[in-house]
């Protein structure tokens, strides 16, 4: 900083600490609630100190031994569904976007720009604006309550295709010339040159798309009716039913904590790529 102003420095820390407290407070309360009994929580005000039922609540939630008014499906299964869907969505998006960006950048063919604009247009058709007809397509294809139904319609990604296109355009032409002189065909060049060079972009996209996949709500809400195919985000919502006291909030909150851990871990562990990826993709 340009000048020393101790008071302003302190003020900065105070504001940031307040910000962190406000951001963290709901998360803390959630954790505390997940360690208490349902009775403790209903007797307002609940204690703000962790209780002693942590292990008990989490095993009950994972095995689905809730006696609350809402859904009592085992959370273990839901976590599995969420994990599979998030991984398929993230990896699938990266794979098909890499291929289409490669085609658009490294080939000249008729209707190249048509294909490019068609992919671009999907940005303007988020799932929210075409829910009933998309539901009908998925139902007609017999994909309700399947992993395919949960993932495939979400796999097309204009954002990822753009990011890879931008990146490929910055790859020097000399690399391609050198590869050609050495007799490499297109797929060889793709596999041995472009893929290794794109690693950082792939990592960044993976974080963003994993979170996107894990946090999906509206789409799974439509295409899953069978408890064994609920992702955990839907499961939490279904656990809440009836009046406030009718829910086993301790188990709902344990489920919420479980649902937050995987995406939070991905963000924390891959923070560097995540921040870079976020700022790059959206620009």
């Amino acid at each position, binding site marked *: 900083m340009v000048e020393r102003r101790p008071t302003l420095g302190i003020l900065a820390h105070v504001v940031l600490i307040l*910000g962190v407290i406000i951001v963290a407070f709901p998360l803390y309360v959630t954790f505390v609630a997940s360690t208490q009994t349902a009775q403790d929580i209903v007797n307002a005000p609940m204690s703000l100190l962790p209780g002693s039922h942590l292990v008990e609540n989490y095993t009950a939630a994972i095995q689905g031994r809730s006696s609350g008014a809402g859904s009592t499906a085992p959370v273990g299964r839901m976590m599995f569904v969420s994990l599979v869907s998030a991984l398929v969505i993230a990896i699938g998006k990266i794979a098909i976007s890499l291929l289409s960006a490669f085609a658009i950048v490294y080939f000249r063919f008729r209707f190249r720009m048509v294909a490019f604009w068609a992919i671009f247009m999907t940005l303007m058709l988020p799932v929210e604006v075409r829910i009933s007809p998309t539901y009908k397509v998925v139902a007609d294809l017999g994909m309700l309550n399947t992993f395919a139904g949960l993932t495939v319609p979400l796999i097309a990604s204009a954002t990822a295709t753009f990011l890879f296109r931008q990146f490929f355009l910055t790859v020097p032409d000399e690399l391609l010339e050198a590869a050609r002189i050495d007799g490499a065909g297109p797929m060889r060049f793709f596999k041995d040159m472009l893929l290794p060079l794109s690693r950082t972009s792939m990592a960044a996209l993976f974080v963003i798309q994993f979170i996107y996949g894990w946090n999906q709500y509206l789409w799974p809400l439509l295409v899953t009716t069978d408890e064994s195919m609920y992702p955990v985000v839907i499961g939490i919502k279904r656990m809440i039913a009836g009046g406030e006291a009718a829910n086993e909030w301790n188990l709902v909150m344990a489920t919420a904590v479980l649902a937050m851990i995987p995406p939070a871990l991905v*963000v924390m562990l891959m923070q560097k790529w995540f921040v870079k990826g976020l700022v790059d993709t959206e620009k």
Partner: protein
Amino acid sequence: MEKRVVFRSAWLPWALLAPQIVIITVFFFWPAAQALLQSLQQADAFGTSVEWVGLDNFRALFDDPSYLASFKTTAIFSVLVAGLGIALSLMLAVFADRIVKGTTLYRTLLIWPYAVAPAVAGVLWLFLFAPSIGIVSYGLQAIGFAWNHLLDSDHAMALIVVAAVWKQISYNFLFFVAGLQSIPKSLIEAAAIDGARPWRRFWTIQFPLLSPTTFFLLVINVVYAFFETFAIVDASTQGGPGRDTAILVYKVYYDGFKAMDLGGSAAQSVVLMFIVVALTVIQFRFVEKKVNY
């Protein structure tokens, strides 16, 4: 920008594009076309007969007071979410930019909510504000404020705004931090030598230079409030009390899947598509501008 050197093949590019093209045709363009078609039709309750009604669905939509009310709700909601979200995260980013030590720690602690699913965010805040058991509503009652979002629509609106802003702060914060870091330090030093204090430097240098970031975030936050907050609304207020927090996307879902009014729901989808197209155009014109900046 184009490549000078390219491969030549008649079939390979299409094979590479095939997965993406198939998915966008089947799950994007076909359904979007269906929505357009359905918005011009009226099916009876059993789906046995379908007739063309032209723009009747749209006319009915804009004559429907509950649809106009939903527009108003969405407008209020997105102004509050975008305004509060941007103001709070800008403040945090400016202070984070001032401090020398601990920036990474603060950043790590502040980006948490980005990873939280909107539906989970809705449930967390619902739990905090639940009228009879929530810890925050208990605190509010203790100071004499009778909180009940199940009855009072302003309270319900406040609940979804808080949850939506909380979820979005981390995202805005990261962009503002990146934006502030790209402002040349020499500009700020020059202003300091001329005697400008931090407050003045913020308004005359940092804020104007951040305007591309702010504008970008404004568009993104409006899109977020319009579309991605469905989960927050469904998990916390479910559009209630009455229909007072039923934002447009919630209404499309409700009318299409709960009330089974396909024509009306499709017409609403089409209106939403126009909104997205408009927002995307605004966003991209701005991106072009920024390249020349």
